[in-house]
């Protein structure tokens, strides 16, 4: 996440702000937690770990057997054992070796498969948890975080955690077994040679751990730079029309290059760090091998050990080469799991700011009265800036409330408070006397439908979009909603009709068509309160009027709230609220407001009597 996004998100209950501050303690805690998660699959975990132990043991037998075979030839030759006997002894060794190899293969398979399986099961659980969390987190959380960052958590970070079991935990057990048992075997065979053979282990372990930690630090930095790059690309593509309209491709490429170079530079640096490490590790390994050859060779010459022992030392080292190289990967897997896990769990642990109160009851609609009681509100991100101040009004079933006001006066905010997209910071909102904070979210959101000002359309067919809130709906109902929203005839004219895919966010629709589609999909719900947030601004007056007439059918048994700039859209409202800087400055019916001759009147004059707009202007200016 970018640091400014974090800064902004800093003082909210459900923010990811504390995440990057993760220290060692938290990292360790994360690892413990992931480990505990694996225990939810006790059988698979047991199989994986059990198989690992056996496979490691078997693997260690191989150099032994090879050495043994070499020795057999040597002793036979030296001792003049009869060819037949020596050959059958060799055959036995060969058969044991074959069996051990096959078993080792089988156990490795079991180990790998179950290790992967545990990881995938964890991945599955985490995916679901992540999805569910993201769906439930409140608007204020989503306001403060860039969608790209959430996608990163849900994809990359989740992957890092998923891989933990197989690449970190199981590998640790395997490596500990191999190195530990191997060391024991070597040292017990020949202490000096054993020490020589193992001399590279501490160096490599230290080296690769240090490197991996350095890589981890740069990895975080790289992620940050890449996320800037991602943002540049994503916004460029989402805003492609703006880019084209201003012919700013060159400017955009410059932005891209800047972000891209920053990331590339760091990527190069990381290659350097990584390579220096692996080469040094290989060198130290081979150096130890050379030493074994030298020291061991001299011991053979001195007759202290056999050629076979030397062979098994050398083979053993080849076997160790791989796990030792993997030490680095293992450290990396731990580091990755702890950073990724810390971020992922921070998301999963977020307290959903807006959720059911412990004793929440379903909303009971009786008379259908919506009431704002002295409501104040400010957005969590800009807590010092009051957006609504001491707002009160009431609306009964069948009534329509109109809201007008300048941009930023708080109209949409009012709309967002009713379904509890945000919680009020002062006062309360009630429906039939029940504070909406004491009702279940589900019942509340089914009772309140908001047609949002910039509605999000899904990249699917028109039909699926309309039926979004009620996917079991029958076709006639869908068509009826579409007719009421004055969309039906347009859809019929399309070659694919209701099966037309609307393009991303509805790009292949005109502005007015998009708005009508979002009206239609809201009409599928049967709410007690329905809010039109400036949802006919891109629709011509004629079509709008037809919609309004169709809406009357629905308006009887619900509260309707209409936010609009075109006064003809709301002049029939039972009550009109004129909002300014979060306060209701005028209220009343159209007629009474006109009679009062205030701000509403001035707006009306501007819209209705275009010819004497000078007079209207001066009047308004005097007032506003």
């Amino acid at each position, binding site marked *: 996440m970018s640091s400014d996004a974090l800064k902004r998100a800093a003082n909210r209950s459900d923010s990811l702000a504390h995440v990057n501050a993760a220290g060692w303690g938290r990292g360790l805690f994360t690892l413990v937690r992931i480990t505990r998660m694996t225990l939810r699959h006790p059988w698979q975990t047991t199989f994986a770990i059990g198989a690992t132990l056996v496979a490691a043991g078997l693997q260690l037998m191989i150099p032994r057997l090879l050495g043994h075979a070499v020795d057999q030839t040597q002793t036979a030759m030296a001792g003049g054992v009869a060819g037949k006997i020596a050959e059958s002894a060799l055959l036995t060794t060969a058969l044991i070796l074959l069996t051990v190899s096959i078993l080792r293969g089988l156990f490795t398979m079991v180990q790998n*498969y179950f290790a992967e399986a545990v990881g995938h099961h964890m991945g599955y659980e985490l995916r679901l948890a992540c999805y569910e969390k993201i769906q439930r987190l409140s608007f204020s959380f989503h306001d403060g975080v860039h969608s790209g960052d959430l996608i990163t958590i849900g994809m990359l970070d989740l992957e890092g955690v998923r891989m933990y079991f197989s690449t970190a935990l199981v590998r640790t057990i395997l490596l500990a077994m191999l190195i530990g048992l191997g060391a024991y075997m070597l040292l017990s065979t020949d202490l000096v040679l054993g020490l020589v053979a193992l001399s590279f282990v501490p160096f490599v372990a230290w080296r690769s751990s240090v490197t991996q930690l350095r890589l981890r630090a740069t990895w975080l930095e790289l992620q940050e730079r890449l996320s800037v790059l991602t943002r540049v690309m994503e916004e460029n593509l989402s805003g492609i029309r703006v880019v084209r309209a201003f012919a700013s491709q060159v400017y955009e490429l410059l932005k891209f290059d800047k972000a891209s170079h920053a990331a590339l530079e760091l990527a190069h640096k990381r290659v350097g760090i990584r390579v220096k490490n692996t080469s040094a590790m290989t060198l130290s390994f081979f150096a130890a091998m050379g030493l074994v050859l030298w020291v061991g060779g001299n011991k053979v010459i001195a007759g202290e050990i056999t050629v076979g022992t030397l062979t098994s030392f050398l083979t053993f080292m080849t076997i160790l080469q791989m796990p030792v190289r993997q030490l680095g990967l293992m450290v990396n897997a731990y580091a990755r799991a702890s950073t990724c896990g810390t971020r992922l769990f921070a998301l999963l642990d977020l307290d959903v700011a807006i959720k059911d109160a412990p004793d929440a009851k379903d909303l009971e609609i009786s008379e259908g009265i919506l009431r704002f009681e002295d409501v104040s509100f400010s957005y969590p991100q800009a807590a010092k800036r009051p957006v609504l101040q001491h707002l009160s009004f009431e609306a009964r079933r069948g009534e329509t409330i109109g809201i007008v006001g300048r941009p930023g006066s708080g109209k949409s905010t009012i709309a967002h408070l009713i379904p509890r*997209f945000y919680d009020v910071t002062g006062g309360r909102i009630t429906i039939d006397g029940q504070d909406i904070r004491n009702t279940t979210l589900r019942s509340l959101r089914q009772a309140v439908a908001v047609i949002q000002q910039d509605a999000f359309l899904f990249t699917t067919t028109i039909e699926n979009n309309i039926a979004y809130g009620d996917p079991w709906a029958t076709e006639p109902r869908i068509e009826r909603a579409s007719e009421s929203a004055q969309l039906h005839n347009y859809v019929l004219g399309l070659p694919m009709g209701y099966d037309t895919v609307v393009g991303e966010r509805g790009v292949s629709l005109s502005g007015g068509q998009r708005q009508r589609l979002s009206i239609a999909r809201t009409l599928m719900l049967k709410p007690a309160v329905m809010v039109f947030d400036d949802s006919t601004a891109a629709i011509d007056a004629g079509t709008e009027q037809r919609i309004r007439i169709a809406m009357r059918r629905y308006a009887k048994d619900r509260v309707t709230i209409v936010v609009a700039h075109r006064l003809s859209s709301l002049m029939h409202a039972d009550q009109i609220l004129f909002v300014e800087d979060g306060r209701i400055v005028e209220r009343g019916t159209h007629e009474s407001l006109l009679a009062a001759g205030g701000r509403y009147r001035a707006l009306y004059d501007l819209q209705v009597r275009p010819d004497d707009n000078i007079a209207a202007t001066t009047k308004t200016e005097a007032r506003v």
Partner: protein
Amino acid sequence: MTDELETEREDGRRPPRAVVGSHRIEEEMFGKVFDGNIVKRIWAFVRPYKKQMLIAVFAVLTFTATQLAIPLIIRYAIDHGIAPGTEDHSALLYSIIAFAAAILINFGASYVQETVVGRVAEDVLFDIRRAMFSHLQRISLSFMDKTEVGRLMSRLQGDVNSMQEFLETSVLSVGDITLLFGIVGVMLYLDFRLGLLTLAVLPILFVVRIYWLPRARIAFMAAHETNSVTNGALAEAIHGVRAVQSMDRQDINFTLYDDKAHANLRAHLTAAKYAQVMVPIVDSLTGVAMALVIVVGGSRVLNQALDVGVMVAFLFYIQRFFDPIRSLTLQYSVMQRAMASGQRLTEVLDVPIDIIDAPNAKDLTAEMDGSVEFRNVVFGYDPKHPVLKHVSFKVNPGETVALIGPTGSGKSSAMALVHRFYDVQQGEVLVGGHDVRDLTQDSLGQQIAMVLQEPFLFTGSVFENIRYHKSAATREDVIKAAKTVGAHDFIVKLTEGYDTELGERGGNLSLGQRQLISFARALVADAKILVLDEATANIDSYTEMLIQKALVRLLENRTGLVIAHRLATIREADRIIVLQNGELIEIGNHDQLMANGKLYSKLYNLNYSSFDDLPDEELEAATSGDFKT
């Protein structure tokens, strides 16, 4: 009203119309393992780094050679310096010296190879990405309209990354293949018969592989595909979260997502089975080969027909022998993925740029007159269904012309043509007297500023958003533009004024505020022609009137094209064009249009004179245009 929304029926059926994510199967192609064309395309990106690649390959070969040499040195040491019966122990010393030399060369070679390959792979990755990104900047909007941003992003990221992986592994493969051949060669050289015997296990491996590969490939691809399906659904949930919550779809979506995530789990488990089943097979074959060496080689050592060192070397080589085979298998799936990715990348790179500057395209200069003319224009997003039908009009220099008409009548589309977002199917669009197809797109963009119907803002400060690409614009210019559109007042009230960071798509502003900022952005561009597509639709009439007054000054000597549904918005217009159903049905000034009593006068009446309901027939007449599209 509060009846439970069912997420599934008793029989486990899912809601018929509910989907999450918008996955399209044809996207996930099953790549060939090797596709000459794609390799050629990718090679074009590698070519600039040919020298480095040569060095890398050379280093890999050196590295492999030392890998091969080490067991030989050990063998020499054992046979000539260590084994009982050898007299001259100086051979051990020589071996150690040779060993030291070999590992130093090995060190150097692996260092060079990994550094060079690692860096070149990163470079190529960034180069490909840049090539795609800059190509996307030129691709016509009709392609972009059809393609989801998420899909393009996965190409710019995931696919590009797998190309990088491919490059890294292909150099390694060179090493692996050399190692394989080297080992075979050395084994045959050391002892031809024993060598042949050991290699006898290879055909078995080949037979198994031939059987295994196609099945495993399908499993791997399925796993890969379900990944992108679930990720797509997650991305949709993130982008559409507000709509999801407001329609209370969380439960259904969760069930549907669970289906996808579960399919993903199953696909991965199957793929893991396929991947792992090879392990015991390869291990068994290793075991067979080693057993053979012990039995056959051992008895020959007994007969003194073979040095014990050779036997040791064989045992070493057998262990190393299966490593490259194993990693080649891994690389095989990387290659396969890379081919699929490469295919998707070249697909993007190959999207033809339909709208290109003509070879002799002229720059549109600021000195041009600023006229805009449509001559018999026919245009449709789908050529079979024209959206604009034989539209002709001329906007004279300095004139302000309004475009009105029912929703969906083609107003925004007409404005897109002025900018040459799309090419017309018939007729021509002229700007400053030149057909837009004879002008460079850059100069066209510089002379036309546009306020789009959807105000899109970038993350970044308010200041950066208003200034946008006009880097030369000073803070004063920005403030002046903001004042002109009446945005200054609210901007200074934001927590950090002009330096306030905007959320994604400007989400922390109200829609009207976003619109004002995008309006200010167009003013800073300081262009000869100003196109306002519903620029004040979400703004109150009072603010709008202030903007209009300011615009009157601004539009002197400039051409204005204004689209609006609120007719009060266009009262300053010199002339009015009425579109209905893609046809130009009226053109003239307000009085003329009012006098002829056609659509304009009806819409006008709807807007003004009657705040009461119109009789249905009249409504029908005024709005029927939309319904026959």
